[in-house]
């Protein structure tokens, strides 16, 4: 009984805060998605028109799926690039482990906007890549091939997310009981075989967590496409931002946001079938 009241006293302030400023806004957004207009008389009229408009406009849905595809690509490539780093840190780095770990994490403490902007400098027509290609004579004329394209968005975001994706993979590799690998070797497993049949399966929770680490923020991304993506590299997040900041069609923006939430939750649901959520989030 005593415990109950202590628990309640401790949990109430954060619970109330989360309710008022996290759950309530999502609820208000759900209500807003049925409104006929952002302000004025239309604000008080409730309608299904926004949903109808969203479902009828195939370009919205195409952009949502395309953005989900871009985020998926970014996440998968980030995992492929990050896994060897995590593996090296966990199994090969020895005494240098924490130094190397710090070395890889430090760049992520630079301003996010400026790291992305730096890629604009690297990829642009007067950028570093072009200068190098020009001076070595590989190309004759400066070309903005990489900037303002979907590829530029993908390259830049992979750069941003590889270190973060590496972290959960590393911690799941660290948890693997080294005796299991010895046992596999004793039983005649070649090293690649024990990797495929012991190490890789046991590190899957980290891989899935890493996938979410990259997928969720990149799906909602609107800054990177604005800076390096141009018209071609525009993502679903830009569509939402436009509805709220420029078109001022908030009800439509709410519908779009809810559609994105649905994609996130469906994916979470599918992927958490692979293992308990708490394990994935490393709680």
């Amino acid at each position, binding site marked *: 009984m005593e415990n109950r009241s202590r628990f309640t006293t401790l949990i109430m302030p954060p619970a109330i805060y989360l309710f008022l*400023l996290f759950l309530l806004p999502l609820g208000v957004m759900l209500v807003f998605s049925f409104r006929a207009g952002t302000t004025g008389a239309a604000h008080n009229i409730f309608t299904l028109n926004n949903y109808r408009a969203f479902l009828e406009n195939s370009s919205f849905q195409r952009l949502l799926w395309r953005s989900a595809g871009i985020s998926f690509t970014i996440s998968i490539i980030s995992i492929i690039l990050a896994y060897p780093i995590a*593996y090296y840190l966990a199994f090969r780095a020895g005494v240098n482990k924490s130094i190397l770990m710090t070395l890889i994490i430090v760049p992520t*403490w*630079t*301003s996010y906007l400026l790291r992305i902007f730096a890629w604009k*400098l690297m990829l642009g027509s007067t950028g*570093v890549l072009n200068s190098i290609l020009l001076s070595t004579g590989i190309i004759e004329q400066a070309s903005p091939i990489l900037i303002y394209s979907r590829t530029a968005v993908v390259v830049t975001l992979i750069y941003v997310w590889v270190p973060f994706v590496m972290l959960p993979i590393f911690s799941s590799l660290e948890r693997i009981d080294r005796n299991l690998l010895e046992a596999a070797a004793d039983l005649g497993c070649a090293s690649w075989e024990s990797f495929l049949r012991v190490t890789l399966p046991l590190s899957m929770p980290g891989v899935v967590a890493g996938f979410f680490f990259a997928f*969720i923020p990149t799906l909602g991304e609107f800054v990177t496409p604005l800076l390096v993506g141009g018209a071609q590299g525009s993502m679903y997040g830009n569509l939402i931002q436009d509805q709220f900041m420029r078109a001022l069609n908030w009800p439509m923006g709410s519908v779009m946001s809810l559609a*994105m939430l649905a994609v996130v939750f469906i994916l979470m649901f599918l992927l958490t079938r692979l293992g308990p959520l708490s394990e994935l989030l490393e709680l």
Partner: protein
Amino acid sequence: MSKIKLPSIGAIYIFLICAVLYAPIILLIIFSFNNGTSLVFPLKGFTLQWYQKLGENAEMLSAVQNSFLIGFGSSLLATILGTMGAIAIARFNLPGRGLFLAVSTMPLVIPYVILGVSLLILFKEVGIPLSAFSAGLAHVIISIPYAMLIVSSRLVGFPNNLEEAAMDLGASYWEALLRVTLPIISPALLAAFLLCFTMSFDEFAIASFLVGTDTTLPVYMYSQLRFPTRLPMVIAMAAIIMTLTMSSMLISEWLRRSGQPPTRK
């Protein structure tokens, strides 16, 4: 299994990754010392003028001030609320624990753009004006999960028998918490605060929807990215901030580790 110390494929790979990770940052730092307004090669010679001019840029200084205020306020509140939540979930296994854990970590899996616009709608419906304050309220939401995870992993590391000992000696539960538990976990509290501060200080997406006219540093930087001639100064500011962030994060990391019990092998 071999013990020969030759640069292995793995070491070469790590080296290449580090080269790519640092290249854009080094590029920016080079341009902050370049005596020219356009960010192109070849360089125009060394200068410190961009750093010297920082003090004259009132707009940027007020943005820095706003970012500090939002960062400080939101991290303080998030650390307090996160610590309360962490104690509750680490020390009690009562009904409501699972639900609270699910809701409090959910902001981790919601894209920031959605958190930003949903709060924008709420503030407008309720009539709260957009300001540094409203952006700070939002930053608490994204910081709570991190504060909670850092503090609870520290709490799990030490058993609650010290609290019980204090209570046996006549302290009330709350006295034991304040005078025994909190001092022991104080490195984790500071680590949580510093991490939350760093996140808030650099956060653009949510702030861009909620700050109104109280421009924060990332929002200011974004507005300047369109004017190439002002960029060297923005980059100089960022280089200073980066140095500060790195120091604060290194301290935070060191605190987190020094407060951690020895990890099992």
